[in-house]
């Protein structure tokens, strides 16, 4: 009776240890990936699908007598990155503003922030995009690209403001007291003491948010902004190679988001040194 739970616990521990070891996780990972590829491939075979992978590289780049030229996928990728970076900058600024409003203790500021958060939280991003493009677009003469940037910025600002708020609240209260006791104003305390320390709390969820933003930027293909997903759709309507193109587009998204995650985990180690 007394030994049983112990042995059970031990064997479970060993199991998770084995599953988490690097070679085993890599093997599992590739088995799953291969499984998916095999499923798609056999499904395509069953449909009698005609694979034409050899036609894909030209959409990345072409090397002809005219010289080197980027292909359409690369142009779409650049647009996606440009769209994501611009939106992210605006989302971060707006998110910081909303977070500070909520933390300000001002009744009006808090109310504005909460109204904004509730509005965005309860709105599908697609509807938000239509609002910006079809309603605010004509009113303020916004082009597709600007409407897309604003939509993504507003949508993600809501999520980012929560990350800022949590990060700021995670800094111990004593830091405020230390800063105040040497005569710092609230703004100085934020700038020199609180925000620099909250970075380490904000980096992990922020990475998730950037990845999320890159992925949700695909939504703007519905108003035909020429980013990666739109390019994919256009290429398919020209070539009918839906399997090859969608696999390729998916891989390109994965490359961006994985690169981001790896880059940020480097940053995390840099900011995590001292506690």
């Amino acid at each position, binding site marked *: 009776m007394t030994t049983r739970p112990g042995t059970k616990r031990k064997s479970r521990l060993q199991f998770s240890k084995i599953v988490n070891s690097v070679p085993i996780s890599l093997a599992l990972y590739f088995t799953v990936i291969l499984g998916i590829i095999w499923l798609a491939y056999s499904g395509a075979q069953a449909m009698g699908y005609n694979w034409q992978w050899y036609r894909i590289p030209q959409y990345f780049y072409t090397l002809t007598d005219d010289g080197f030229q980027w292909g359409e996928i690369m142009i779409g990728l650049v647009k996606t990155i440009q769209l994501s970076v611009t939106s992210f900058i605006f989302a971060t600024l707006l998110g910081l503003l909303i977070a500070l409003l909520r933390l300000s203790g001002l009744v009006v500021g808090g109310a504005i922030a909460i109204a904004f958060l509730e509005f965005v939280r309860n709105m599908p991003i697609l509807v938000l995009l239509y609002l910006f493009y079809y309603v605010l677009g004509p009113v303020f003469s916004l082009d597709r690209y600007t409407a897309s940037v604003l939509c993504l910025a507003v949508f993600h600002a809501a999520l980012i403001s929560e990350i800022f708020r949590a990060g700021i609240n995670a800094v111990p209260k*004593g*830091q405020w*007291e*230390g*800063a*105040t*006791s*040497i*005569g*710092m*104003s609230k703004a*100085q305390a934020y700038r*020199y*003491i609180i925000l*620099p*320390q909250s970075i380490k709390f904000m980096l992990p969820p922020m990475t998730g948010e950037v990845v999320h933003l890159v992925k949700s930027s695909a939504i703007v293909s519905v108003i035909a902004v020429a980013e990666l997903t739109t390019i994919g759709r256009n290429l398919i309507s020209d070539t009918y190679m839906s399997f090859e193109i969608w696999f390729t587009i998916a891989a390109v998204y994965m490359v961006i988001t994985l690169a981001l995650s790896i880059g940020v985990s480097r940053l995390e180690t840099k900011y995590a040194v*001292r*506690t």
Partner: protein
Amino acid sequence: MNSGEMISVSNVDKFYGSFQALTDINLTVEKGERVVICGPSGSGKSTLIRCFNGLEFHDSGSITVDGIEVEEGSKALKTLRQEVGMVFQQFNLFPHLTILENLTIGPIRVQKIQKAEAEERARKYLERVHIPEQADKFPAQLSGGQQQRVAIARSLCMETRIMLFDEPTSALDPEMINEVLDVMVELADTGITMVCVTHEMGFARKVADKMVFMEAGRILEISEPDKFFTNPDSPRCKLFLSQILEH
């Protein structure tokens, strides 16, 4: 002793919600005077001294510090906080800055003095607290006693006229208490006005000009150390002293 009042507290009440943390507090601290406040945990000692530099605000009565009326939202608060240094139980050093940066950030950002001058000043005060060699380390790399001495130096760097200590040795391992108390005794000899919340009665005997005993948000005893330790008027104070002097 220099003449003149540095801190003057009259009829102060303070509430946290409906809980009354301070009741009818009256106290004066002269220029250059060293006052030690003691009393059981939760008696309002921290609350009282935090009202001196506007970390908390009293609800009624008045507090004047170096001629400045302490009031929530007052423009003079910034000036006030540059007159009053504070050392906390938990040090509250800035962990993302080096020791030198911890000491210079106030002078540079608040007092707007040149970096070189601020660093010179910081090294002077690090010398004063006997850790000049730690300037380029981060707080987490120092022992508790060293961190608390850095915190004292950080306050000194603001060249304040008043220093508040809130149980500066309570979070320290016993072997580090004396290194901090020694620095505080040296500081007391410089003529700065000091208000210390502490239960270190040896220190109190050595430096205090005036002892204050608080319980349940009230001041029950204010007297000279001689009288305080031998024959206080308040029976509660006598009981408290007998309890803490036992060990």
